[in-house]
């Protein structure tokens, strides 16, 4: 039976799709058979971030409306054999029910080890549809007041679903600002949300560029952060990527301070 993980946030643009794409790639590299399910109907982006937009022939709506079989709609990633994507539809958010989404997930369940569901922003129907098929939920959060506030609300809502596990992934962490006491740290966020993070991903301009050309992260640090996240998901460990590591030497701290003056 597959583990069915949904990635939610409440607030939009915090990096759910980016996390799904990169985590999926790392889980696949660890030998898992992974499928990424784009549940953001109408505002689908997972296909472009994974660089497979030109390969999309059928999408989730085609499967549900019987125009193709589920296996025909699955797209294999170019860079990893055991990573597939089920694209979302360009329209029809109102046509797909939570029961239908559960049906799709149940069918993917027997084919894969991991089903990663990319949830739309917000907490309305799209959220319910995406979460209702999942067995675990992860809230992606940025170190900003609005994102943390929304994450707190979403965590409360998730408590009303039957989930085996809930976690938080802190994305876009700015170690330089934390060192200067200008940004909330991962510890601060953990204490506020009262939940141990499953992953910590640094802010990385290159990751944004990689997404633009349909690739997953290439910088050493971000790859390491996703590797640790994948390991935590796979084994249940709670290892944390230490984004402050590079500023721990005395000279690097001095350099950082000089840069900020």
């Amino acid at each position, binding site marked *: 039976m597959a583990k069915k993980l949904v990635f939610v946030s409440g607030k939009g643009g915090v990096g759910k799709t980016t996390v799904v794409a990169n985590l999926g790639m790392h889980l696949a590299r660890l030998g898992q058979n992974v499928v990424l399910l784009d549940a953001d109907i109408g505002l689908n982006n997972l296909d472009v971030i994974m660089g497979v937009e030109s390969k999309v022939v059928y999408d989730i709506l085609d499967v549900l409306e019987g125009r193709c079989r589920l296996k025909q709609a699955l797209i294999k990633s170019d860079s990893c054999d055991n990573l597939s994507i089920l694209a979302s539809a360009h329209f029809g958010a109102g046509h797909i029910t939570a029961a239908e989404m559960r049906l799709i997930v149940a069918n993917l369940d027997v084919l894969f080890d991991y089903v990663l569901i990319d949830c739309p922003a917000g907490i309305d129907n799209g959220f319910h549809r995406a979460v209702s098929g999942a067995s675990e939920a992860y809230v992606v959060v940025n170190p900003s*007041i609005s994102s*943390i*506030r929304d994450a*707190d*609300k979403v965590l*409360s809502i998730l*408590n009303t679903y039957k989930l085996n596990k809930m976690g938080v992934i802190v994305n876009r962490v700015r170690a330089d600002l*934390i060192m*200067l*006491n*200008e*940004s*909330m*740290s991962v510890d*601060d966020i953990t204490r*506020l949300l009262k939940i141990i993070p499953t992953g910590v991903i640094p802010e990385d301009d290159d990751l944004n560029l990689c997404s633009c050309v349909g690739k997953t992260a290439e910088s050493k640090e971000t790859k390491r952060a996703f590797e640790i996240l994948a390991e935590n998901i796979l084994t249940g460990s709670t290892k944390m990527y230490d984004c402050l590591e590079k500023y721990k030497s005395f000279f690097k701290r001095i350099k950082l301070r000089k840069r900020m003056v």
Partner: protein
Amino acid sequence: MRRRKEALKRLQSVLMYDKIQAPSNFCELVKRDLYTALNDYFDMSEKGMDFSIELSRDGKYIITVSAKATRLKNVPMIF
């Protein structure tokens, strides 16, 4: 002081009000009354007091008050 502390304080307060769904001056009112009550028995420290309300999973309010006093007031003064 850097902005992290200020941001943390605001967030704590925002999250608390989101949960307890009370008007935004609710805590200030309770805090003021508690301070007045405690001040009858203690010489309260300048730093004042911390007051927070949380909502537990079973829907109960968890009220935490932490206050510092420099000394107890004289018993004859109290009674």
